[in-house]
């Protein structure tokens, strides 16, 4: 079976991941502190001002959800960069699997495992701080579709950055730019709705909103209309980024030189 081999790769990755379970706990401590800081900041803001469309409760749940997404990312860029520079990337040309799908399944297995772990633990923390959600949580299974698309979007973006290792001596600078674009325009910390109208409109038109803002907003204010709109927007950007990846990959792979022996 074509997909079976990639599922096996994902399984092995998950087993490896379980060896580092303490890293999750420490990462969760980090999320605990982040949520604590945000609860304090937003409590102060909400005590004096109204924020359209949000309560303290939904704002903290939004933040928690978006942090779970962004912290679940599997950082494979440095591994890919190393393989490109050392020439190891050539091994994918002679093995019966495709490099993009190989990394996609690694990414998805790690992302989904981390996401559910963080989400489960962070829910406890958030309930502790601001109580049970004010909103309908039964729509979560539908929101998870958006999370899955967000994972694919993040993967495509990271893979495109990784491919630049074929041309650039160092891609960390590029990595910084994109991760910060997600931080600001992707609504990782603050939902785009609280920004001045010009920036809100601008950031919503950019692809980065597909990473955190769209799924997290859907989580706290689900409606069938917004669900369809979010899924449509995410699929649109996945398609565009997919084409960009395929285009860059087709050029990059021509740069691989194989010496016999």
């Amino acid at each position, binding site marked *: 079976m074509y997909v079976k081999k990639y599922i096996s790769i994902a399984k092995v990755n998950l087993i490896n991941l379980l060896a580092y379970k303490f890293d999750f706990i*420490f990462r969760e401590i980090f999320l605990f*502190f982040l949520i*604590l800081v945000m609860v304090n*900041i937003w409590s102060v803001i909400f005590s004096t001002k109204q924020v359209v469309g949000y309560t303290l409760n939904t704002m903290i749940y939004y933040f928690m959800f978006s942090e779970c997404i962004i912290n679940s990312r599997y950082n494979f860029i440095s591994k890919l960069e190393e393989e490109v520079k050392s020439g190891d990337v050539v091994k994918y040309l002679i093995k019966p699997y495709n490099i993009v799908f190989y990394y996609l399944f690694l990414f998805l297995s790690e992302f989904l495992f981390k996401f559910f772990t963080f989400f489960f633990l962070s829910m406890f923390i958030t309930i502790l701080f601001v109580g049970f959600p004010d909103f309908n949580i039964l729509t979560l299974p539908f929101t998870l579709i958006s999370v899955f698309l967000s994972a694919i979007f993040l993967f495509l973006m990271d893979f495109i950055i990784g491919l630049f290792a074929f041309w*650039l001596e*160092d891609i960390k*600078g590029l990595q910084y730019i994109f991760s*910060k674009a997600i931080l*600001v325009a992707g609504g990782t910390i603050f939902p785009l709705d609280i920004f001045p109208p010009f920036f809100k409109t601008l950031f919503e038109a950019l692809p980065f909103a597909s990473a955190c803002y769209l799924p997290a907003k859907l989580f706290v204010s689900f409606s069938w209309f917004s669900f369809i709109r979010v899924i449509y927007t995410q699929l649109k950007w996945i398609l565009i980024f997919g084409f960009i990846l395929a285009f860059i990959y087709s050029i990059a792979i021509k740069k691989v030189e194989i010496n016999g022996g």
Partner: protein
Amino acid sequence: MEGKFLKFIFQYIALGLKSAMEYRFSFISQTMGMFLNDFAFLSLWWLLFSSFNSIKNWIFEDILLLFILMGFIWFFLGFLTNLREIGEIIVSGNLDYYLLYPKPILLHLAISNFDYTALGELLFSLVLLPFIHLTLFKLGLIILFSITGVIILSAVIILLNSSVFFFGSTGNFKSLLDSLYTFVVYPSNVYKGLIKFIILFIIPVGFVTGVPVDLIKNFDPPFFTLTLIISLSFLTLSIIVFYVGLRRYESGNLLTVRV
């Protein structure tokens, strides 16, 4: 004696810079990356303050001050980046290398790696300076509090890593440290009660940027003195814990080659 130490420190820094310059593109792109990182984070606060003018008496200029201070602190910490690795070094048995040299072990450990991306932090702070209402007195305070901030954070890092001497495992200090840093990079005036007490007197990260920003705005001699006392006593405590722990260190007789 002090001259010898200074020469030793400067030689290490020069060596670090030289090796960084070997990969010039990496050096520039990573330094600029750090600059952009700070810029992105600051623009986030700018957007927030565009909507909410102030957060409990903190206005956007206070955030600028916080970022300037943080930039200087991360820059100075860039010279001490190896402190974060002490736990790993102890567990892997690589501490033997440092024990063999006739130099102060902790100082040698601290400066033997240089994170050149910290130059981006310095650049960012310098670019921001003209945007705040600056007097010579304020500038003096910024520099002084950058040093006390570095002292407190270094002490926290040393204490966390020294726990390896006693408990034997490194855990994941980097995540734990990142957790503590959250109290440094967000406005500190929003905390109250127990949390405020903890970040001021138990793990005094509140004195890294929070209290200093308030002091630069409104100078208060008793709190100024308290900042100095807390930073120095916390450093002393961390050095004592490190050296007490060092007595428990057992060499792994590991043979390594340092290039």
